């Protein structure tokens, strides 16, 4: 099967799949198989978190640059696009009214996404160029600082509601959110598999060695940071136009931490890991809501009230018991279904490290380098 046909078929399958889920978003939808509003909302948030986690994984997991300011770029995307749709959305919609109601609102959303991604990318560029000179914890704290500054600046702009919040028209639905989640995964996957991706991974593994081999490290770090920010912006646009209300409280640094938790829990530098992490971190606190109450003498323990405590405990225990995250740097996929290819000659490693999983080697190396300093 030629590759374009393969892509075409998988594209159609994915869109059909998303379309069906989108149809299920209302209780009576899709031949009565629909889900209630609460579940629908959760599904949308999972998809938004997949975008955030996958894009953050590009800079944190694959490039190895520790950024904890993702919520800031999400906020930039959300607010800039919301400002556009609130002020020009109706106008644009009437211009494109010949496309029908759905068509016109799709155009508005697409333009909003373009604006959000572009503004977030510019913000990423402005933040990235100076701060990516720093390394490790310093980079982390500077990105965190920039994200907080962005949030406080937005809080002080009255044109986007300031402290009272911002009403946004609801153009996004699951179809769009899911579609962009797929796009994000595909784009990030392709970047990682490309020459650029190799350069990024080489920076993660050893920045000095990468530079010595002729990789323009600063350039690649900034590229990866800007792409990551742009996708965070897209997540923000979708969040804004699905939630229909923006408050700067949604973009506090705890949101950035949440995204970090997703990728670390799933396994840094694993595409599927980030997706699974996004699903787990979105669902777990919600599932813990259903914990039963336990009567002990006169007092009733409401375990549901402890859900965030339990969530934190699960997080700590995962880190203690499985520090590389659920997947490590491995991927989970359907490749095991394929029949095994004949082994190319010379690919089997000769040497002391034969048979050792790559993740462990890396861990050992990192510990070694940490011991040195």
């Amino acid at each position, binding site marked *: 099967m030629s590759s374009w046909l393969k892509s075409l078929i998988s594209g159609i399958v994915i869109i059909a799949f998303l379309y069906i889920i989108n149809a299920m978003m209302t209780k009576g939808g899709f031949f009565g198989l629909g889900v209630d509003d609460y579940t629908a909302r959760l599904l949308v948030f999972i998809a938004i978190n997949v975008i955030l986690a996958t894009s953050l994984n590009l800079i*944190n997991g694959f490039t190895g640059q*520790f950024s904890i300011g993702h919520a800031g770029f999400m906020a930039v995307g959300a607010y800039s696009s919301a400002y556009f749709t609130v002020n020009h959305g109706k106008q644009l919609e009437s211009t494109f009214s010949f496309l029908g109601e759905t068509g016109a609102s799709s155009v508005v959303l697409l333009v909003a996404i373009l604006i959000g991604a572009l503004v977030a990318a510019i913000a990423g560029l402005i933040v990235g160029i*100076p*701060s990516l*000179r*720093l390394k*490790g*914890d*310093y980079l*982390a*704290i*500077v990105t*965190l*600082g*920039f994200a*907080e*500054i962005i949030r*406080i*600046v937005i*809080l*002080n702009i009255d044109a986007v509601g300031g402290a009272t919040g911002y009403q946004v028209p609801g153009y996004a639905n699951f179809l769009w959110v899911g579609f962009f989640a797929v796009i994000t995964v595909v784009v990030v996957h392709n970047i990682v598999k490309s020459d650029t991706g190799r350069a990024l991974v080489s920076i993660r593994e050893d920045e*000095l060695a990468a530079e010595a081999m002729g990789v323009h490290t600063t350039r690649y770090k900034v590229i990866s940071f800007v792409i990551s920010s742009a996708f965070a912006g897209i997540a923000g646009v979708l969040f804004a136009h699905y939630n229909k209300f923006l408050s700067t409280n949604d973009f506090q*640094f705890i949101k950035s*931490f949440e995204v*970090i*938790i997703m990728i*670390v*829990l799933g396994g*840094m530098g694993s595409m599927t890991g980030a997706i699974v992490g996004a699903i787990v971190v979105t669902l777990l606190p919600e599932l813990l809501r259903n914990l039963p109450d336990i009567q002990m003498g006169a007092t009733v323990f409401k375990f549901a*009230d*402890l859900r*965030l*405590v339990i*969530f*934190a*405990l699960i*997080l*700590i225990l995962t*880190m*203690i018991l499985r*520090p*590389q995250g659920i997947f490590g740097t491995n991927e989970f996929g359907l490749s095991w279904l394929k029949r095994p290819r004949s082994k190319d000659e010379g690919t089997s490693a000769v040497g002391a490290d034969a048979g050792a999983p790559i993740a462990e080697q890396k*861990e050992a190396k*990192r*510990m070694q380098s*940490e*011991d*040195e*300093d």
Partner: protein
Amino acid sequence: MDTFVQQLINGLTIGSIYALIALGYTMVYGILRLINFAHGDVYMVGAYAGFMLATYLGFAANPSIFGFIVVLFGSMAIAALIGMAIERFAYRPVRKFSRMTTLITAIGMSLFIEYLFVFIFSGTPRSFPSLLPNDNFTLFGNATISTSQLLIFVISILLMIGLQWIIFKTKIGKAMRAVSFNLNSAKLMGVNTDFIIAFTFALGSALAAAGGVLTAQYNPKIEPLMGIITGLKAFVAAVLGGIGNIPGAVLGGLLIGAAETLVVGYGSYIGIPSTYRDAVAFAILILVLLIRPAGLLGSNVQEKV
């Protein structure tokens, strides 16, 4: 001029608190290269421990200097134990893993403490009892300084002198310096590194708890999430001064405290509204780090190839 002095006094008061908390961040970072995100929450725990002690030992009803001292040292002791427990049960098992893992553990610990306290004490703020009579003393002109502010200055200076003494004049301090210089070599030389690390956590946590009780005397509203933003600013103060550097943490704390109140007081003259208060710390940090990546007093370490 009077208002300027007043603003400066208020700023340095807050700055002293930041400095006390920053010391804990900087000591732990110096030894483990770990950003202990739960440290801000230990500050909150200290305030709550003080609150419980004051309420249940009856000092809230009849304030006295003795009561204040008992509450202060009591909450410092409780926080020290909690700090050691955090290290023992959360950080020690992940110490050998990558930085990211330890960082997530720290974030998890922070969330754990915060929401455990929300669960126990509910999210509504409590009012911390005033343990000492609060008077205002007039300084030059119209600037005043209250008892609680004076207390913050005096006690934080005493604690910092005490810390300096522990680190530079005692055997355990020598061991701490050795561990922060190189953990493995220190271990080879017979330093009980596990104990030293636990001791460092105890020391840092006690200082944060002192900060918690002192803040509560100055601003009696305490709540389970009060440690987040204060802790973050204290951390920024530690990085600003040069993380791992003890005088740097104090300098950073005082600078950020002063800058913050000055922006609230005078920012409107240069077009910065007072709502930017929380952004000031970060803005200063970013500027300093871009010019001096190791912080104000930090030494620049060249990477070895």
